[in-house]
């Protein structure tokens, strides 16, 4: 610590860096790391990094905590997965869910934000209305909607009263349930997108809008040429957050449909990992699934980020 204080305030010239680094006493640097960084890094390593490595290890075995001994099976789990109908269904379900959940709240959120982009108590209050579901627990949201959408629930009762003979089984029809779940998630995430887009809209300079208007641009043209490009950072935030939320959707499915109706019509990969790992205790197989899931999330997020951030830079 003392040596650090005595260090001259001016930084060493760049070409000296390597030599200075070697000569600089290691003790204070280590002390600094130990006191400021080590606790956080250590807990992160124990509870996130190490488990990922362990997962990777498990995925190469037939690990089942209730059925020892555990054997090394190489890539068998992965090969099995790629031919496993249940997994391929989950992959399809996850993709559909993700596409809907990324697009719907983004589009509707932008529309609502444009509508609410005015000052005054009314618009503030309405913004709060749209934001409220965001702070609710997904379990609460799931319970509310599963009651509302029950085949004998209020929505279908209302439809029957309106003269619809056979209202859809929103959550009991295998062809509909996934779209219902996606809509529920979209409903909860909408307010998030609204608030982020509203913030983006505040950042669009009024002068730019006025200049475009003077040049004769109509509202649509002004939106496409001025507002929309300026909203690029908001689009990035919303898309990445929605992408990650959709991928890890588990709560909704566990509470609303438990993977059904039928065989896995709403079972996402995130759902199957935990069902396989904890209910069926196939730790090895579930870990292989989890590792594939991590890879998919990482690749898709990285591509989306790169694409979206390039749009921001192009401004």
């Amino acid at each position, binding site marked *: *610590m003392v040596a650090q204080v005595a260090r001259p305030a001016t930084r060493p010239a760049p070409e000296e860096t390597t030599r200075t680094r070697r000569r600089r006493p290691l003790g204070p640097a280590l002390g600094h790391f130990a006191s400021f960084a080590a606790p956080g890094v250590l807990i992160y390593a124990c509870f996130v990094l190490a*488990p990922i490595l362990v997962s990777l290890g498990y995925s190469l075995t037939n690990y089942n905590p209730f059925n020892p001994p555990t054997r090394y099976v190489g890539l068998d789990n992965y090969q099995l997965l790629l031919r496993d109908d249940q997994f391929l269904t989950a992959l399809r379900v996850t993709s559909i869910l993700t596409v809907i959940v990324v697009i719907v709240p983004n589009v509707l959120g932008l529309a609502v934000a444009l509508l609410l982009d005015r000052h005054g108590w009314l618009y503030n209050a309405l913004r709060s209305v749209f934001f*409220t579901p965001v*702070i609710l627990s997904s379990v609460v949201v799931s319970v509310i909607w599963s009651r509302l959408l029950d085949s004998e629930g209020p929505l279908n009762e209302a439809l029957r009263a309106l003269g619809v003979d056979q209202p859809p089984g929103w959550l009991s029809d295998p062809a509909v349930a996934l779209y219902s779940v996606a809509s529920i998630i979209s409903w909860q995430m*909408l307010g998030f997108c609204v608030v982020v887009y509203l913030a983006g809209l505040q950042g669009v300079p009024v002068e730019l809008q006025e200049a475009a208007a003077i040049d004769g641009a109509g509202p649509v043209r002004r939106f496409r040429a001025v507002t929309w490009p300026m909203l690029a950072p908001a689009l990035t935030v919303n898309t990445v957050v929605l992408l990650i939320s959709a991928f890890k959707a588990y709560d909704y499915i566990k509470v609303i449909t438990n993977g059904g109706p039928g065989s896995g019509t709403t079972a996402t990969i995130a759902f199957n990992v*935990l069902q396989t790992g904890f209910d069926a205790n196939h730790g090895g197989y579930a870990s292989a699934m989890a590792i594939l899931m991590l890879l998919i999330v990482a690749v898709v997020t990285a591509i989306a980020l790169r694409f979206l951030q390039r749009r*921001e830079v192009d401004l």
Partner: protein
Amino acid sequence: MKHGKPSWLRPGVAITLAAVFFVPLYFVLANVFKPGDLIAKQPAKLPLPPTLANIEAVLTRPDRLFWVSLTNSIVVTLLSVLVLIVLSAMLGHYLARTRNRWTRALTLLLLCGLMIPPQVILIPITDVLRFTHLMATLQGLVLFNVGYYVPFGIFVFMGFIRAVPVELEEAARIDGASRMQVFWRVVFPLLRPATASVVIFLSVWIWNDFINPLIILGPSQGTTITTGIYRSIGQYQADFGSLFALMFLATLPVLIFYLALQRQFVKGLTGGATKG
């Protein structure tokens, strides 16, 4: 107005949309204060006259599910957020100020944690916790929360710390303050907006968290607010009054928290959106 549209159009459309959007929430709010037999028959009706029977039923359950869950959720949320603030502020400061190959790699490694779905780590986590005898304990859940959310904490703090002039810290160091003193007395007070963001987001996330307490606290031992609701779904079967009352009570603390800090909520959210 500018294009000759009637002036009531925008507020009219906005109010209508918001009303439709609010229907599910109205449905719960109305039925919390309605006697059980009316919920099935007239779900959409206003609760007149309102009754507190459902809320009372939840508060006076013989197994004290609500009170136990509430205590667990408060303890876990408070402890996790407190530890997370201290650890991620210091770690964020370390990473923002010590810039070399190693810290850059470490930062990247930590930020990767932002997108890791809990499913990927939960299976080994239960083994780690069982091995350290922390499985099915609140401490175990707190430790997990700290590890899992530290990336978010440093992500927010690092951005703010870069905006604090280093000269401020150097001056304090020259005056003889230790690194710890400089951080807690000079830097940390300047990070209040960042701290507010982290507290707000993490409190809501941890309070609402379902999957992690469900698995770490195990099937029977402890419940948090969310896993308590999940377990009551089966118990309450057709008693939606009690179920909704439980959900209402479980949400009340977050709702109050949100209403009290509304402005900071939006600011925290949008700081990220405008800076990218």
